[in-house]
């Protein structure tokens, strides 16, 4: 099964990797031990296209220590075309253009040498 470290290594290279249950077809990201739909433990890799739409968003104005120099910044919940959702930083989209339903595309963000999930314009 894909470890968290492997997921973020792939994500850093631009590839979003989900897993699909080979018994019931349920899709999951990130991977988990048991399929929450059928309890099977038979996952297959399932690359995602990276395309999704915003289901909710916010602009953070008061940040945790370590992020204070970055405010304001936007975070969105994004429903991916394949059916799973991911939370990510939104970049290169003006705050006043953010809306529920807006089409976005995955892009890896690197911060302090760590990859995080980001989304930019489609």
């Amino acid at each position: 099964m894909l470890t968290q470290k492997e997921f973020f290594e792939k994500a850093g290279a631009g590839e979003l990797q989900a897993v699909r249950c080979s018994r019931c077809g349920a899709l999951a990201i990130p991977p988990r031990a048991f399929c929450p739909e059928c309890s099977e433990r038979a996952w297959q890799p399932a690359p995602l296209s990276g395309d999704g739409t915003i289901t909710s968003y916010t602009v953070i104005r008061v940040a945790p220590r370590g992020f204070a120099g970055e405010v304001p910044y936007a975070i969105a919940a994004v429903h991916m075309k394949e059916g799973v959702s991911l939370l990510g930083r939104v970049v290169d989209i003006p705050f006043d253009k953010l809306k529920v339903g807006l089409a976005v595309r995955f892009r890896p963000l690197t911060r302090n040498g760590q990859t995080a999930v980001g989304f930019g314009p489609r």
Partner: protein
Amino acid sequence: MRRVAVIGVGVTKFGRHDRTSAELFAEAAADALADAGLPATAVQALYYGNVVGSETEKQLHTSPQAASVLGLPAVPTTRFETACASSHAAFRHAVMEVGSGVSDVVLVGGAERVLNVTTEESTEYFAYASDARWEQTLGLTFPGVFALVARAHMTKHGTTEAQMAAVAVKNHKHGTLNPKAQFQKEITIEQVLKSAMVADPLKLYDCCPFTDGGAAVVIASEEVAKAAARRPIWVLASAAASDWMLIGDKRDLSRVPATERAAAAAYRQAGLGPQDVNVVELHDCFTIAEIVATEGLGLFEAGTGGVAAEKGWTSLGGKIPVNPSGGLKAKGHPIGATGAAQIAEVVTQLRHDAGPRQVDGARVGLTHTLGGNTATVLVSLFGRD
């Protein structure tokens, strides 16, 4: 399960204190034991909530520390950590210890100290309740989580920022009636709407404050309760539920499924429904959180919680008064103490002892406590004979 009652309650003043969380807990616990009319030696176990002590006070092992500071070094203790729901989780397990017959008198409570660190630091520590690798790396904050809930609720149901502001105005008004509350002043809708943006669409007055404080309750078996100094308030139900940890796994951000599950389990345990509840203390860490909770608890239909707040249905004197204490919003939110403080308020209400904020004739009360990113919820029901 044997019947279990709450026979004593104690809460410190909420706000800024120059005392450790263990000292704050000891004050609340001593008050709770005095209220119960029991000597400290009657306590057979301590169930304790504390969340960010390892960060703000560089302190782990907080439950035996709290017991030592209280002067009860020998009782078995356990610390519970389910973010903001910690002392309510402690309460549920304590009820099981007494209900199962293991103990007859158990002390439950919690404390937190956060105002000794900066807002940036406490914002970071509270964010630890979200996933370290997937979400903290984004700079997600606790207000940010509920901002996502708010935006989803506004989009799905048309909930407005003014409706959210109505929750803040109502809880501040209730807070003026509670001498233990952190805030003792009324605010207006306009003040809320014009306050500084924290995480759009949530503004400063949509958010509960950082708070130092402690709370404690004494629970007992029926036999002990019937001989106690005060009228026993019976625990009719205590239920917990969870939900996915990651925001990405929560499929409908306008709902909190853990609230719906915990409420269903609590109503089933008690053989009651939302229509039987007279007073509610629920987890209004943000104004939208109160709106979503009133829906998830079945007090109002999905999507109508904002309307209910705006029309005053949740105010003292309304259809179903919510957070007569002032709630987390005005009373304050010392996270490890909050669940126990909510229970203390409902017990006070059911004793008909709440003075100017008394809900007339209350016979059944409910407490609801939510942990962090909505992954933990506890719901308990209480009644008077």
